[in-house]
């Protein structure tokens, strides 16, 4: 596909369960970003990858959150022992290179996570 894809599109889980969210960036994009968007809020930056490396993990809300990227392509965001406050839309974006405002970020449609 031409754009960023994310799966699943929706996920309902029970408190305490682990979830894994997947992001397929645009082919050839070396930079990949994860954001969280709560209802009525702007985007909260979580983590970025340059290639397979994530130099700054300080945006992750807690140690229950982790992310990895393999082959410079697909990335997964894993939330362990989910809590109700983790409910949000998780957005992934990719850009051709890491360059802040010099590089347009293209967003996927997001994964809507609901923790019961």
């Amino acid at each position: 596909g031409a754009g960023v894809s994310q799966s699943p599109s929706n996920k309902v889980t029970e408190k305490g369960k682990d979830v894994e969210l997947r992001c397929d960036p645009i082919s050839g994009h070396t930079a990949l970003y994860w954001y969280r968007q709560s209802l009525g809020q702007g985007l909260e930056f979580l983590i970025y990858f340059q290639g397979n490396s994530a130099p700054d993990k300080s945006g992750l809300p807690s140690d229950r959150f982790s992310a990895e990227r393999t082959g410079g392509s697909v990335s997964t965001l894993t939330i362990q022992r989910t809590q109700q406050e983790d409910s949000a839309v998780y957005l992934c974006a990719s850009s051709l290179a890491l360059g802040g405002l010099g590089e347009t970020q293209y967003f996927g449609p997001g994964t809507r996570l609901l923790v019961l």
Partner: protein
Amino acid sequence: TQLLEQSPQFLSIQEGENLTVYCNSSSVFSSLQWYRQEPGEGPVLLVTVVTGGEVKKLKRLTFQFGDARKDSSLHITAAQPGDTGLYLCAGGGGSNYQLIWGAGTKLIIKP
């Protein structure tokens, strides 16, 4: 801590009317981006402004970056139902990758 405040939070107007939404901060940003997000989709970049006082036009949308690079506005002329969506501004600060995001203005244009 850099913050971006958007106003109004919600705006519902009739087709054909004009409107302006604002993005304000007490901090200086190197540049400002505006995005539109439709339900069930991710944000889509509309414009990037980088120079204080810069004005950019995109059809019926006019974007302005404040002279001091602390604020920005988006003006829509003769709004159409297709303009409905969540408008987000995002500022670039010291980091070359991390944007500071406003909470958005939810805009509804009624036919």
